[in-house]
């Protein structure tokens, strides 16, 4: 069993605190992504787990072993680097076997492992080539192969797909998912690409400025973002945000209003809370409905229509200047300068306190069921 437990991990470079107390509990066999914008500390966190960074404070456990102060080689981990880090003067076979042979493994065992990994990754015919003679995707496979032959308890992958072109990235993504399925090993994956994180992961750690902003399944992050940062970071185009204030509260029901609203929106919460006096109302672009100018909660003018075929992105400016994006189906006839009304379906609204924390959101039964799976 090799889950990964991180307690109060801190890392500072001089006066700059990069990781400000990270706590994580990753289960055995799980695929977990660290997701966040550049500079959020995700790579530093991964490198700390790998033992490539000295910690300022905190503890790391892999399985039932504390690895905080162990050298990288003794941690039972393998790492795949963003730029592959293949030894350019060694052929593929040597790249994969180099570490093993220096650690005194028997030649026939090394040969067996290399052959096996090469078969899994379909690089058998490349074993005698040098990295220079390989394509980006092949190099990536070799880098993964070098990790596999170590038979680690934990795989660490640092943006492994970001140097590949778009098409190859999709293919390798699927292969990584299949590999995880096949090996059943715990994998930690760093990425800034939310599509990779959402599609590959069992759970995603969203990092913001050196802190865990939210740790949950991809759909949890999407449907129940814990705060404004996650709400704005997950989903594309971004969630729309409107300033609002509560006009009335009746048990779980909150009526939300604002000068720019034509009429208030009634939102139902999942749990009773004290509703603060200032709120941010968030709504995803695909949930807003476009209608006649005075029919909706909001009125605005179309500034731009981006037609993507199956869907169109309609950019609307409210009369107070707030910019919103609405996803409509591809046949929506809206044009620039049209006056439109926008309807906010009550069950689609997210409410956030001034601290940025989300108020407990009541989901429709179908989504609720989906999150339980």
């Amino acid at each position, binding site marked *: 069993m090799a889950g990964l437990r991180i307690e109060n991990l801190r890392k500072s470079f001089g006066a700059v605190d990069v990781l400000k107390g990270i706590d994580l509990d990753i289960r055995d066999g799980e695929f977990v992504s660290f997701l966040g914008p550049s500079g959020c500390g995700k790579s530093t966190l991964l490198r700390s787990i*790998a*033992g*490539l960074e000295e910690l300022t404070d905190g503890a790391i456990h892999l399985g039932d072993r504390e690895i905080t102060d162990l*050298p*990288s*080689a*003794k941690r039972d*981990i*393998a*790492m795949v*680097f*963003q*730029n592959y*880090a293949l*030894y*350019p*003067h060694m*052929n593929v076979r040597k790249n994969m076997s*180099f*570490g*093993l042979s*220096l*650690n005194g493994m028997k030649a026939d065992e090394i040969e067996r492992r290399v052959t096996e990994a090469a078969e899994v990754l379909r690089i058998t015919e490349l074993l*005698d*080539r*040098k990295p*220079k*003679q390989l394509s980006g995707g092949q190099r990536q496979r070799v880098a993964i192969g*070098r990790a596999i032959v*170590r038979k680690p308890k934990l795989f660490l992958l640092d943006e492994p797909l970001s140097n590949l072109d778009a098409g190859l990235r999709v293919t390798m993504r699927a292969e990584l998912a299949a590999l995880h399925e096949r090996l059943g090993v715990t994998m930690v994956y760093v990425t800034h690409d939310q599509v990779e994180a959402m599609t590959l992961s069992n759970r995603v750690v969203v990092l913001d400025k050196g802190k865990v902003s939210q740790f949950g399944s991809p759909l949890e992050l999407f449907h129940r973002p814990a705060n404004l940062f996650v709400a704005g970071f997950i989903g594309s185009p971004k969630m729309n945000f409107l300033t609002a204030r509560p006009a009335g509260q009746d048990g779980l029901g909150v009526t939300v209003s604002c000068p720019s609203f034509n009429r208030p929106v009634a939102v139902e919460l999942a749990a009773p809370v004290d509703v603060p006096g200032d709120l941010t109302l968030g709504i995803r672009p695909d949930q807003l409905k476009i209608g006649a100018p005075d029919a909706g909660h909001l009125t605005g003018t179309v500034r731009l229509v981006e037609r993507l075929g199956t869907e169109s992105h309609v950019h609307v400016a409210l009369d107070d200047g707030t910019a919103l994006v609405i996803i409509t189906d591809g046949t929506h006839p809206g044009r620039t300068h049209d006056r439109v009304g926008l309807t906010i379906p009550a069950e689609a609204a997210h409410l956030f306190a001034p601290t940025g924390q989300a108020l407990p959101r009541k989901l429709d039964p179908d989504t609720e069921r989906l999150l339980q799976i």
Partner: protein
Amino acid sequence: MATAPATPRPSRRKARGAGITPWLFISPWILGFLFFTLGPLVFSFVMSLHDWPIVGTREFIGLENYRTMLQDDPQFWKSLWITVKFAGLFVPLNIVLSFLLAVLLNLNLRGTAIYRTAFYLPSVISGVALVTIWSWIYSNEYGLLNYLLSFVGIDGPNWLGDRTWGIVAITVASLWGLGGSMLIFLAGLQSIPKELYEAARVSGVPPWAQIIYITLPMLSPMILFTLITSIISAFQQLTIALLLTDGGPVNSTYFFAMYIYKTAFRFHDMGYAAAMSWVMFLIILILSMLVMRWSAAWVYYEGQARKDDADA
């Protein structure tokens, strides 16, 4: 003519002008090469076939100078042997020491910039100044080296006056100029991606193996370059030996280049000196070619996948 059909046919004069212009632009280099490199080269070869005193009548003697050298001149062989011994000491030490210094500087310890400058400084000091400093260090009676050695109870030898130590003293003084190769190695070290070492750390490759299996192969082009330039400068060693020992004691540091120099400018036998220069040139050429051929076995070039790999 590969000109586009739309352009009017250039006049004869214009065409000739266009032919000369590029040559004019590179003429400074060409003239320099003709007068200062190719000319002297050919001239010295012609010289080597003559009995050619600086003053007096010249006489064509064919290959007589070369025959004398090989058969009747023991000093030629002695000087050559001294130079080979020197190269045998200097070349490996120069490479190993400048590599080690570069590795140390690359650790990015405090004060790296100061040390880098300090190590490079001797390379920009003029040879005469450098030799003067070393002659003080080596001096038998009030030399710094023997003074320091006396503290640990060693009665230092007469460095420059001893037949065994003379060549060692010259080697050490020559090594003082290793700043150039050190900088080349340092630049090479800094161009090795640090992920290679991190990947090695994660796979449990110990530091000594990282140096042998990652650093050395990645630096091999620089090692080859330093090897060849060191061999050349070792064979051409003149200044330090001339000023420090002037060939002594008992001709034990009478280098090949010094023998050439003295033959030409003290004994005024230009023909014989030219012939020896050509022999030195051939020795360096052959050594360099051997090293280049041997290098195919151990030099890894980043930019090029070798042909035999591609065929595999």
